[in-house]
């Protein structure tokens, strides 16, 4: 009998994502020092390090999520990819476009937009490859019989809403949008708010999938609670973004609606507190498993970030926090504390499934130490940003330089803890990359032997 050829393109996406995150953190650290010492590395302007950092870290989130989806569908859900070639083309389009984008930043070519600071033409291959991904995903799921578990819904929603929000982010190319400042800023926030919501659908779907596999409670992904949480998230994705636009003079009811929608998250906060005790018991049971440990860290960061999100969604508090480092603290809590921890859980879950002895063997101790270094550093980093933001928001002087001097000690703590965070995650990423590479090469050798 000839064994089915394995679909391991997902691992290539994950490895590429790991490289992107490692490089993205490096540029983030350089940027944080340029913030403190403007003459530091003048050859590379802050206007270049910032987009390098942002694009690479966002790429990690997308690459690791997409990699997980390709891998889980093909290898664990008994759903061979509808088009393996399509997945491979998707991968190479990402690689080539990514390299061109990085080159454009180094060359100083920008479109000057938040998130997508690269020349607008480079969005075309990304858009086309995403269509390929969507077609592949939905056609692959046609092989699934019965109702979808919630993570299929979430992945599908993430794919569809990425199309929508990515397109929306380019509405500025039409003069009708860019020549009206209120519309320009409001639509930008709308697109970016929902865009982060779309990648969160991919990431949280992955979390639910991985947690179900580890705990053996896979039926929970079909529970009423799981669907309720999904629809609450979708509702927030669609209508909650405008809490970023409180100071923008759009129609006032848009802003009031966002406030009301954001407060629905109090339900989630209550739920977290209600489950806390039982969650600790589960943690004790699975604490030796790297994947579960990363999921647990994500849980803690969700709790912290949710409280911050609720606070900054209150217009009276937002008045002080908007446009300050507190927004960055929330962003970092979300992208590193939540998204990155979940995606690392996904990566280590794949490693555990494919090479269980490696997950517990050599490298386990450094990963544990690095895990704690990264999380403690992130805690300090997050706190420093909150204090820096408060310093900025409550500053009453007229001088920008005066404000920067006031918050400088916090920015120094932020930059130093950023180094700790980077080093901690680098160690984790190094081991993850190494183990994923072994899995890929073992599978490639096995395939070669079979055909030989």
């Amino acid at each position, binding site marked *: 009998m000839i064994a089915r050829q394995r679909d391991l393109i997902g691992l290539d996406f994950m490895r590429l994502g790991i490289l992107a995150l490692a490089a993205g953190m490096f540029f983030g650290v350089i940027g944080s020092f340029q913030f403190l010492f403007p003459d530091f590395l003048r050859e590379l302007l802050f*206007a270049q390090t*910032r*987009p390098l950092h942002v694009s690479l*870290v966002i790429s990690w989130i997308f690459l690791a999520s997409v990699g997980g989806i390709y891998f889980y569908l093909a290898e664990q859900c008994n759903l061979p990819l509808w088009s393996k070639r399509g997945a491979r083309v998707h991968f190479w389009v990402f690689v080539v476009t990514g390299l061109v984008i990085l080159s454009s930043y180094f060359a100083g070519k*920008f479109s*000057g937009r*938040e998130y997508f600071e690269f020349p607008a033409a480079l969005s075309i291959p990304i858009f086309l490859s995403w269509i390929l991904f969507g077609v592949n995903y939905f056609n692959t799921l046609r092989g699934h019989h*019965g*109702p*979808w578990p919630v993570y299929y819904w979430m992945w599908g*929603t993430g794919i569809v809403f990425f199309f929508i929000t990515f397109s929306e982010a380019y509405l500025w190319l039409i003069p009708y949008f860019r*020549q009206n*400042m*209120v*519309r320009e*800023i*409001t639509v930008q926030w*709308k697109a*970016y*708010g929902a865009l*982060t919501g779309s990648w*969160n659908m991919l990431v949280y779907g992955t979390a*639910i999938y991985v947690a179900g596999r580890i*705990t053996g*409670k896979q*039926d*929970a992904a*079909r*529970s*009423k*609670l799981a669907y309720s*949480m999904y*629809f609450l*998230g979708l509702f*927030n994705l669609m209508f909650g*973004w405008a809490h970023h636009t409180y*100071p923008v*003079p*759009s*129609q*006032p009811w848009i802003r009031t609606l966002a406030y009301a929608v*954001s407060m629905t998250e109090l339900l*989630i906060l209550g739920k977290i507190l209600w489950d*806390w005790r039982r*969650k600790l018991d*589960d943690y004790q049971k699975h604490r030796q498993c790297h994947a*579960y440990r990363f999921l647990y860290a*994500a849980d803690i960061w969700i*709790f912290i970030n949710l409280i911050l999100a609720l606070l900054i969604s209150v*217009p*009276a508090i*937002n008045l002080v926090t*908007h*446009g300050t*480092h507190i*927004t960055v603290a*929330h*962003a970092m809590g*979300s992208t590193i504390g939540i998204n990155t921890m979940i995606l690392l859980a996904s990566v280590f879950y794949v490693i555990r499934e494919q090479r269980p002895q490696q997950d517990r063997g050599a490298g386990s101790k450094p990963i544990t130490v690095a895990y704690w270094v990264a999380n403690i550093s992130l805690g300090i980093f997050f706190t420093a940003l909150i204090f820096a933001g408060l310093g900025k928001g409550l500053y009453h002087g007229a001088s*920008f330089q005066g404000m920067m001097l006031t918050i400088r000690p916090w920015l120094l703590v932020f930059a130093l803890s950023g180094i700790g965070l980077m080093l901690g995650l680098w160690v984790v990423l190094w081991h993850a990359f190494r183990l994923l590479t072994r899995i890929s090469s073992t599978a490639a050798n096995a395939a070669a032997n079979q055909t030989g």
Partner: protein
Amino acid sequence: MEPFFVAFPLHYGNLTSVFRHADNDASHGSSLIAHRTIFAALFLLFSAYSAYVYTAGTKALNAEPMNDRARHGQQLFQRNNCTACHQIYGLGGYMGPDLTNVISRRGRAYASAFLAAGTQRMPNFHFKQAEISALLAYLDFVDATGTYPPTNYHISWLGTVSQADDPR
């Protein structure tokens, strides 16, 4: 750093806890229809809401439409990635100040001096005089659209803010 990974309200609560509540109600057939209906209803609402935001919800407030010079300034602003360091209505980087009302609060001469020579923090972009004029025209245009940060406002007991200097 900056608010690029904007705070967004999408949380599923405690991830691992979802799995302690695995219920046995496996009446999936009817729930599938319910899920699709909820999704379709939300999507329709979202589409209608988006259409409103694109039109009446963000209707132009400044009487003067963007002129050619301001449009050129907007292009320069983007081409030089000014948003990496500066904000407009709080959107952008934190290396430099928010520029929404820089013209009315600091004056054109002040802004012009920064554009012409840079500072220790801001590189000298070697703008030509016409480019400086275009950037100032763009900042003029932005300035006329509203006030940020608000200076005259009232906070209600619900935590909402009514801004006296909101053009709405």
